[in-house]
């Protein structure tokens, strides 16, 4: 019988596993993670306890001085309030979109997406234009036109929480809504047929199924909120609300206090690691291998007249989070001089200035575009490999690898920059002021987003899909190329976008690492803002958002696979 002629795939003789493509790729990913994250963090640890000998004095100062303690306290307050309010806003919106017949779901989705994408320091600048106590246009309007004797002061902790929440509630919203959508109606129907009321079902079936996602989103919101340097510098510093990132930044005023800054940074890392540990503990309780080809069918609730009340809430969210800041920035960007009467002399001069006349902003835009593209691509592939190792292999220490990949999530950019500086200054390669060190900072800092995106996609894919290819004779490389990567492609493009967007607007690491050659978009914005160029700053902000919009378009174009289109995702 000729049956056996095809039986063995024609492949080269087996190499030892560690020498094959699989081994090389895995080894490369581990090495990259070590250089990007582990070694810089270790050099941070060294700097915090070493001053020509072992010393505890840096930690003593970090925990002993009122200024440092106040910064620590402010950061925790900021993070806690931000996390809490992110739940209050994110969960109802997620529920409305995934489980009810509320109208205009697209608007909510748009609000959440744009809020996440908006650079927090640009939102901050927008609200400063509106609510700074003296010159803020909204305050001027209230005082001079309406005649009320009230003044909103954005330069406070409340102002800071407000601006930060606009950026962080989408974390809760996105995780909660995707969890709610993946709960198949049959679970809830099973409870209802047993006599459980709608409320009882929601509390005993739906809530436990989505609670890990909500908590996970909240912790991400917390961790992100406390790491934002830009908004904390722009809103916090004028109101003397000093937080950890701005405090550490201040420690670099001449003479720089590397040791204390490192010690404070480590405390910061500790807070982050605890938050992330909790997050993972929640998620680890259940396994999410739910999707083996068939999609879930969520149960929709008919709200009757109440849907219009819910709709009104969504509109308010849209107005406050999107319309107000963007309207303001657009208005400012076309003004000769920002004020109540700005519409009397509109101009394109600001755009001309930043795009053509001023070589610094011109260069900054190109630099950021290039850096963000490269960094996002790196992060996504590194993330895919690392989460693949975590989920699909039994490699000893793979959990450690996963944790290492998550550490940067809580490294404020400024800390990442300090760590990189200290590490690379000791190395025999001159990286300071180059594109390379910015790239290292970006990839290191945002690799967790790449891991996360790949991780959640990979978990959706039953391992048998890879195994089926393997037994047909597909090598590791072929399996990745033919099965795994195409299946997680929508997730990878989402991850790419998730990295590209923050890198385009990255400020807190760049501000220590840039040189006049490698200046980036956000640094240019910050420098212009500091020197009082209100109107060109707004124009640059709008350019920033246009770049992000184009990037989304591109990612959508390539990311939409046949599956993605079918499920409407």
């Amino acid at each position, binding site marked *: 019988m000729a049956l056996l002629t095809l039986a063995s795939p024609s492949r080269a003789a087996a190499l030892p596993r560690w020498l094959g493509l699989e081994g090389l790729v895995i080894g490369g990913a581990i090495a990259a993670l070590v250089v990007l994250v582990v070694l810089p963090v270790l050099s941070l640890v060294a700097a915090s306890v070493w001053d020509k000998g072992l010393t505890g004095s840096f930690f003593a100062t970090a925990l002993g001085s009122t200024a440092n303690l106040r910064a620590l306290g402010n950061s925790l307050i900021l993070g806690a309030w931000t996390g809490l309010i992110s739940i209050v806003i994110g969960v109802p919106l997620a529920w409305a979109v995934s489980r009810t017949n509320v109208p205009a779901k697209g608007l909510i989705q748009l609000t959440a997406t744009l809020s996440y994408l908006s650079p927090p320091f640009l939102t901050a600048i927008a609200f400063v234009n509106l609510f700074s106590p003296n010159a803020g246009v909204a305050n001027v309007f209230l005082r001079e036109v309406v005649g009320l004797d009230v003044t909103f002061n954005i330069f406070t902790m409340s102002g800071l929480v407000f601006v930060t929440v606009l950026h962080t509630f989408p974390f809760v919203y996105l995780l909660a809504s995707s969890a709610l959508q993946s709960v198949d109606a049959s679970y809830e129907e099973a409870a209802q047929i047993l006599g459980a009321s709608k409320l009882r079902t929601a509390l005993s079936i739906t809530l436990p199924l989505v609670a890990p996602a909500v908590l996970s989103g909240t912790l991400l919101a917390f961790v992100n909120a406390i790491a934002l340097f830009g908004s904390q510098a722009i809103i916090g510093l004028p109101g003397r609300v000093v937080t950890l990132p701005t405090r550490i930044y201040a420690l670099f005023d001449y003479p720089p206090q590397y040791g204390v800054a490192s010690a404070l940074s480590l405390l910061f890392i500790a807070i982050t690691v605890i938050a992330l540990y909790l997050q993972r503990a929640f998620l680890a309780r259940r396994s999410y291998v739910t999707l083996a*080809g068939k999609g879930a069918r969520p149960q929709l609730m008919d709200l009757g007249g109440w849907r219009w009340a819910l709709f009104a809430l969504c509109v308010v969210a849209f107005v406050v989070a999107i319309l107000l800041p963007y309207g303001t920035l657009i208005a400012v960007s076309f003004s000769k001089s920002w004020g109540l009467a700005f519409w009397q002399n509109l101009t394109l001069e600001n755009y001309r200035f930043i795009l053509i006349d001023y070589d610094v902003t011109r260069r900054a835009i190109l630099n950021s575009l290039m850096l963000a593209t490269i960094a996002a691509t790196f992060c996504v592939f590194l993330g895919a490999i690392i989460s693949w190792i975590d989920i699909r292999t039994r490699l000893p220490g793979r959990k450690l690898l996963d944790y290492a990949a998550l550490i940067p999530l809580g490294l404020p950019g400024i800390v990442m920059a300090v760590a990189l500086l200290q590490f690379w200054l000791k190395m025999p390669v001159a990286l300071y002021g180059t594109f390379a060190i910015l790239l290292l900072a970006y990839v290191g800092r945002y690799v967790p987003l790449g891991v996360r995106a790949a991780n959640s996609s990979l978990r959706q894919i039953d391992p048998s899909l890879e195994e089926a290819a*393997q*037994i*047909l004779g597909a090598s590791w490389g*072929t399996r990745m190329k033919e099965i795994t990567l195409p299946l997680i492609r929508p997730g990878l493009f989402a991850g790419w976008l998730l990295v590209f967007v923050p890198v385009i607007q990255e400020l807190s690491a760049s501000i220590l690492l840039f040189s006049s050659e490698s200046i980036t978009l956000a640094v240019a914005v910050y420098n212009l803002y500091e020197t009082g160029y209100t109107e060109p700053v707004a124009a640059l902000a709008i350019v920033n958002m246009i770049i992000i919009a184009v990037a989304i378009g591109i990612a959508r174009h390539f990311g939409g696979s046949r*599956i993605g289109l079918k499920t409407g995702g």
Partner: protein
Amino acid sequence: MATIQINNLSKFYGSKEGGAAVSGLNLDIRDNQFVTLLGPSGCGKTTTLRLIAGYITPDAGTIRVGDRVVSSADGVAPPDRRGMGMVFQNYAVWPHKTVFENVVFGLRLRKVPAEAARRKVLDMLAMVNLAGLEDRLPSELSGGQQQRVALARSLVVEPGILLLDEPLSNLDAKLREKMRTELKQLQRRTGITFVYVTHDQAEALALSDQIAVMHGGELQQYGSPDDVYRRPANKIVADFMGIVNFLPGTVEAGPNGLAVAVDGVAVPAPVHGTLAAGQPVDLAVRPESVRLAVGEAGTGRLAATVTDMTYLGNLVEYWLQLESGTALRAQTHPLERFSVGDRVNLSIDAADCSVFPRAGAAH
């Protein structure tokens, strides 16, 4: 040479105590055979199959394919170098590839020229009744059709060994029946060695040349369908292979050697050589081995009362109670009718019974 020889195979999850998914498994699978791993859920069938495929490394023992050791505790030849085929319980049809792309995948890996590959795929799709659906995506197929795609995908590369993990368990009864017949024909036609996993004993009996009955990670019996059904090696196998009555009795010496006394009536069942007269035993009796007649018992017949009956269409099932109180199930042809409350007498086809020492009884 698609023989599989499994020696002393063990796989532990977690602690070694009680954590054995498979332990001390010995199995000899000959060429061109349809071998079924049968047992209740969690008994280690999938683990065994995945050990054979090479997805997991055994903790002890070896697996040989032909004369080559492919798995041992020291290492395994990876699945992609074994030239086996596998059909997964959840189909594992790639959702991003069309039916054609799914099936042609293995041929592309084997560098079969495009035109020849195309012909092979279309032939194979026709064979599994999927002709005309080659451009569909899996999401546009029914469960049964996806199952066939999975089958076609593994068969088109003509593997020497095909592993199937409960391939029919997600299909409805009618389709399952149909696919069962097709699978059997397919196996006969291709001569591929099938290792088939199921928890459905009827399926195993209908399909297999040899059945390996597993329980708690251990092999209980390995034999032909007739063997495992009519001559179960132990009570676990007897119980798992279908409805069975365990009638308490005692071994006694009779005129034609040892027999089993039940309710004072000697049943000349085949008594194992290790059992001695006087020993308490359970007599395993299938419901269809019980014959009923009206009236009081004569010699060699047991007296009983009908306590319940169920009409099954082709059969009628009776619940009976012996004098001693022991309950018993019997199945008869629908032409013989008895009513609840009837006094009946019954005889047992002793040759089809098995005798097991009673658990917990002293020797």
